[in-house]
């Protein structure tokens, strides 16, 4: 094993031990705070501190007791569905709008102030308004994700378009490309890596938003599940929820990064 690889394994393990240490001290100070051991048993099942055999939340994440009581897998799946619905919608609207803003100075002047104003608005501020409009949990969650995750897509797409080299456009002019050919053959290939950066940021935001949105809308989903476990006084499950949200978000980002690299011409042919 080489030195670099050893460091990459050993150093995170050290930090992990430190985290467990801090966590244990907090559990000692704060009353009823779950210890790392409690949480482990609550996750994978086993014998708890009172000597009872308990099932963990990951022992059977696929169980379906009834409509309101489903395993963690179904909670995450429901959240992911909403995230992808909102994210896809943001993509469908955001990319063309970004292309338009990137290609036309006038469009940039027209839209830029509003993008700057709406971009920093928290999803929680949108939520009541959208809930009032749709009166439906799913639609509210999806539209909240849409309205908060569309900005990076628009901004990065427009940035990608604007970074098209003037020389490429001259080539297109000499060859008398139609506006459509310019978009497909020149602008999009240049903008795609930027669009994917936007998508990656956007998906990250969407996954952040969904937890908050589901806490307020209720029903089903990982966000609601965490809030529900708080109401059930099952604090260890909140910690499990946090870790799961983190891991799923990390995996989403990893997948998105892979797809982005695949479409990025600057990362090709450098074997």
């Amino acid at each position, binding site marked *: 094993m080489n030195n670099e690889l050893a460091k990459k394994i050993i150093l995170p393990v050290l930090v992990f031990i430190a985290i467990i240490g801090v966590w244990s001290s907090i559990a000692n100070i704060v009353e009823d705070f779950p210890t790392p051991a409690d949480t482990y048993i609550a996750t994978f099942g086993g014998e708890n501190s009172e000597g009872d055999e308990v099932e963990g939340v990951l022992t059977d994440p696929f169980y379906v007791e009834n409509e309101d009581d489903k395993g963690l897998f179904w909670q995450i799946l429901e959240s992911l569905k909403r995230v992808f619905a909102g994210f896809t919608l943001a993509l469908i609207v955001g990319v063309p709008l970004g292309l338009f803003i990137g290609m036309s100075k006038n469009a940039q002047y027209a839209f830029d102030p509003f993008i700057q104003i709406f971009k920093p608005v928290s999803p929680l501020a949108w939520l009541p308004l959208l809930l009032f409009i749709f009166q439906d949990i799913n639609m509210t969650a999806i539209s909240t994700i849409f309205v908060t995750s569309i900005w990076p897509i628009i901004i990065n797409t427009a940035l990608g378009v604007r970074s098209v*080299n003037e020389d490429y456009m001259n080539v297109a002019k000499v060859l008398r490309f139609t506006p459509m050919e310019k978009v497909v053959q020149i602008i999009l290939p240049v903008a795609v890596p930027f669009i994917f950066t936007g998508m990656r940021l956007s998906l990250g935001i969407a996954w952040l938003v969904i937890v908050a949105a589901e806490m307020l809308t209720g029903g089903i989903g990982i966000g609601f599940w965490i809030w529900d476990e708080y109401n059930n006084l099952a604090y260890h499950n909140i910690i499990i929820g946090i870790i799961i949200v983190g891991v799923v978000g990390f995996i989403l980002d990893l997948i998105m990064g892979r797809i982005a690299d695949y479409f990025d011409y600057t990362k090709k*042919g450098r074997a």
Partner: protein
Amino acid sequence: MGEQKFLHLENIEKRFPIPGKEDYIAVTNVNLEIKKNEIISIIGHSGCGKSTLLNMISGLDKETGGYIFLKGKEIKGPGPDRAVVFQNHSLLPWLSVYQNIEMAVKKVMPELSSPELRERVERYVSMVNLDHAKDKLPSEISGGMKQRVGIARALSISPDVLLMDEPFGALDSLTRANLQEHLMRIQQSVENTVIIITHDIDEAVLLSDRVIMMTNGPEATIGEILEVNLERPRNRVELQHDPEYIRCREAILSFLYEKFAKEDE
């Protein structure tokens, strides 16, 4: 009248408006006739408007006065009848060597069947000796090779005029010599009308039938036109002692450094 003029520049002027000031006149009163299959160089100090002149012929820039005619028709905007080899090659980095040329041929000759298209693209890849690199991306080949692809792409669409804007300016002198050889060899097989912008005296004499010398800007114009009466094919080594070559070099040197010397930028 008799023969039709091939490429004809008439009283060309380019002025740039400067807000609150008088217009900046970059180029003025340029009259030039270029014959079919003639190779001409335009040489001058930087800022003499030689690139501006080329851009007006390509149509990428619009003259503010005068007319440019190609085969009796006035030039309005860019078009594939005037292919451009850009100084920085301008290959699309996401397309391979083959695809870069294919894109141009496909667009300009949509009537070609796919075997004809492939045959044509491959012929031009071979013309610049890049068969071994045809599937490489521009980032994987050297600067000189990129510029060869640029030349192949420009020639592949059978333009009436090939416009080259300091095509070898960004290359080291050995690579530049190599590319000049390529260009001369290609010119022997496919005759073309070529206009080369350059600031290299040897390059101008070696490649051209006529050298157009520009005066310094602002209000730059054609100062002198030099005929290069050297047989082709030309050999750069043998030319070094050729009286005609020496005469041409001295004429340009004297124009650039005595009559129109420029202190610095």
